[in-house]
């Protein structure tokens, strides 16, 4: 990072390549379609380059870059002035597949999906979506998300919870049947 800040173009190239995948994934989940995600990623990369001199190292570089990226995504969503649209890219694993891959507590139980993940994410308010995506894609802890979004940790917690619960409803994820013998 310091080399990139000092103008080392190769270092900057390496830095962008290293973070590209995560930034694009953040944008993809935030924007819910490929075209807007690409645009937001491009804006984010450029913002990172332009703002690199202002990065002071107080937060992890990824945290700073993700803040820039989320802002780029929100900017992109506003610019487009429309709700994110689901993507039907055949290369994208279906939400059902993703849910099966991660493994339900009872693998034999079918996961009934009413909407795919992109459409479900698009139903969330952008600020709720941002909290969920920063946690589940960015891998940030609540304190980092609070810093990125400039909101209290309690708000981060409630937004993530609310977002996941809403997604579960939209995706039709049911509670597994509880075994007997414990409090229910």
């Amino acid at each position: 990072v310091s080399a990139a800040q000092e103008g080392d173009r190769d270092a900057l190239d390496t830095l962008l390549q290293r973070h590209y995948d995560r930034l694009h994934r953040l944008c993809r989940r935030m924007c819910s379609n490929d075209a807007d995600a690409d645009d937001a990623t491009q804006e984010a990369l450029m913002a990172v380059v332009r703002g690199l001199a202002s990065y002071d190292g107080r937060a992890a570089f990824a945290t700073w870059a993700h803040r820039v990226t989320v802002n780029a995504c929100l900017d992109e969503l506003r610019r487009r002035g429309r709700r994110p649209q689901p993507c039907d890219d055949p290369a994208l694993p279906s939400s059902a597949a993703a849910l099966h891959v991660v493994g339900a507590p009872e693998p034999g139980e079918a996961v009934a999906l009413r909407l795919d993940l992109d459409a479900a994410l698009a139903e969330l308010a952008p600020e709720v979506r941002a909290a969920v995506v920063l946690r589940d894609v960015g891998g940030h802890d609540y304190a980092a998300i609070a810093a990125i979004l400039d909101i209290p940790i309690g708000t981060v917690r409630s937004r993530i919870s609310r977002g996941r619960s809403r997604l579960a409803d939209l995706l039709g994820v049911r509670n597994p049947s509880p075994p007997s013998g414990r409090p229910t």
Partner: protein
Amino acid sequence: MMPAEPHRHLDDDTLSGVLDGEASPEEGAAAAGCDKCSARLARLRQVAQAVGGPTPSPDAARRRAMIDAALRAEEPEIVAPTVLATRPHRRVAPAWAAAAAVIAAGALAVPLLDDLGGGVQDQEQVAAGDSEATADPPTAGPGDLSVAEQDAQPSGEESALAARPPPERDLGEIDLDRLEELAATLRQDFGREQPLELTAPGVAPAAEALRPGAGEVPAEERSRPGVHACEEAARRRDAALGPLVYAARASVEGRPVVVLAFEVAAVEAPPSTRLFVLAAEDCSEIAAE
């Protein structure tokens, strides 16, 4: 015998915290010891893992092109035409129509959308250490530059831009007290779809440039030495700045300044703008709103 205290299930906030390792050990134990809480926790886990699952990624060529474009962000005269100039409708424009109205109304009959030749010259005087550089619009075009000024000309593509200077707004003398006033106006009016009625003499050209759909500050204007240097300086002050949506020359108490406005994306609020008045000579901050 006292009746057993009814079991209290954890709420979703707590369960989500358990899932993310943000809950207390007691809460984690409570979730593990209750079938209903465990089931709800598993439900949230499925969602979290789905969100965090794979996404389609651009192919290697596209990825390389995007990174290359970002690397050229340090050279906005190259990047801006290919990336920034493709933006569609921008909501910020009406707000800056208001900006133009207020600022220009406070200025005395200044030429708007003036020829840029003087602006380039001013910046080169600054670059050459000429502390007496002023915002007065010079009459000489780039073709009339002195030998020293020609020596200060950038080379390559930058030189090609300077040889065909685009117009630049010159707001003349501005009053910082009015700047605060107009910044407040901007925030109130941000997002208006209809252009404001502009009655101040001389404002119409600038307002026209700021109507919805006018887009960002044109690439050629962004690449101007003074605008570019001060844009970079502003971005160093605030990494969250969005697109540059307005740029103009002006003066404050006779001191040449650059007026820049950026769109700012905010998570908790509607999009806003940040306004900078920076000294043309060194891009030091004179005012910001």
